[in-house]
């Protein structure tokens, strides 16, 4: 059984159908890059998997549990799937350490000492153990994003959704974040990432999904998708001239 099963998912915003029947099955440990032009529905798809958007048709299940739009089911789902955002979205009134501790203590009711130990461990893991007491506005964009990753990891999710997590970063900060993601991938974390980093997608991902106008236009291993695009849309997107 696949870890994440996305079946015939449709999503409309008013008259605008953003997702027109998406089917993707993700196996445990897979790293999937979702690429495509802006407006192709890639971010919406990711947000649907985490329940930030409700779907109009179809179904999404994670580790056998259906995604249903009530608070109880959503909460159960979100404990399994973490999400990282383009804009970091750290809590600005809390230190990096507190950011990582908060949801453990509030949602999982983890005792403070335990949550703190976990926060230290996770911040170490993203190379920011020494920034435990720093506030988000004292950190660079790359560091903030790594704290956001640590925060998601502290909830021990079985999969992570990454929504253009390097798009808001200065070019020189992109690599430190990608290095962390790469490490997670090598440790066997299941990852779904919307990305514009084609080289990263080629090097790290097990499959690449090309979305176009609300549909999965092409899907396959990166070698195939990048070296041998079948549709004119993907060729154009990759800038391949024939």
């Amino acid at each position, binding site marked *: 059984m696949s870890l994440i099963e996305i079946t015939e998912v449709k999503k409309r915003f008013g008259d605008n159908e953003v997702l027109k029947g998406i089917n993707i099955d993700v196996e445990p440990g897979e790293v999937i890059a979702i690429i495509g032009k802006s407006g192709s529905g890639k971010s919406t798809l990711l947000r649907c998997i*985490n*329940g*930030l958007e409700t779907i109009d048709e179809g179904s999404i299940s994670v580790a056998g549990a259906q995604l249903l739009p009530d*608070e109880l089911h*959503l*909460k159960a789902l*979100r*404990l399994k799937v*973490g*999400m990282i*955002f383009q*804009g970091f*979205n*750290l*809590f*600005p*009134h809390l230190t990096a350490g507190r950011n990582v501790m*908060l*949801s453990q203590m*509030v*949602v999982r009711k983890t005792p403070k000492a335990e949550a703190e130990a976990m926060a230290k461990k996770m911040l170490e893991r993203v190379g920011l153990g020494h920034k435990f007491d720093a506030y988000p*506005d004292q950190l660079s964009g790359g560091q903030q994003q790594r704290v*956001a990753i640590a*925060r*998601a990891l502290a*909830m021990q999710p079985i999969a992570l959704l990454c929504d253009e997590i390097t798009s808001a970063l200065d070019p020189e900060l992109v690599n430190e974040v990608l290095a962390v993601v790469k490490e997670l991938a090598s440790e066997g974390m299941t990852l779904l990432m919307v990305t514009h980093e084609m080289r990263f997608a080629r090097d790290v991902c097990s499959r690449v999904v090309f979305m176009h106008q609300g549909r999965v236009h092409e899907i396959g291993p990166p070698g195939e998708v990048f070296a041998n695009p079948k549709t004119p849309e993907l060729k154009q997107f990759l800038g391949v001239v024939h």
Partner: protein
Amino acid sequence: MNDFSTWDILRNLLMAARWTVLLSLVSFVGGSLVGLALLFARIGKGRLGPAFAKTYIELFQGTPLLMQLFLAFFGLGLFGIDVPAWLAAGLALILWTAAFLAEIWRGCVESVAKGQWEASSSLGMGYLQQMRWVILPQALRVAVPPTVGFSVQVVKGTALTSIIGFVELSKAGTMVTNATFEPFTVYGFVALIYFCLCWPLSKSSQILERKLNVAHRNH
């Protein structure tokens, strides 16, 4: 003919000013509690709560405080309920303060970035947990200066209760004037006392604004 010394005038006014302070405090504290309830109704997810809170706020913001005082004082009297002036004054001011505070605070809650809601949702927090740990602590920083600033309006608003016969600073001013025939001196003192009450509040609002901004310099 005139047996009142300046000290007598001032002393009488200061005694009455205690009631102004007390009424302000009661209105502000009571108004905060009612305002908080209104705020939650206003930004809640249901349909009835927001509609009720919105109507309430519009009603109280859209009518003069004086009319609200009259309605509380005379309106309840029509039903045979004898309302003492202090009760009508307290009630009307609490309800009036609540409407304005709820609206000020709504703006503060909505000023918290949408990404904060999304991030806390994605970490599995429920609505109340998000409010308690993520949204309100941030909204609070934004809310302190305008809230303290509004307390000045509450203090000045208490002056209107003199019209329904509540003896606070303004009413005492009128009474002392009637006895002394020195309106300029008396009302001069009255104004000065109001200023002494209000100025520290506006000043602290400014200081707080600067302080909280420094703590939050990059946001």
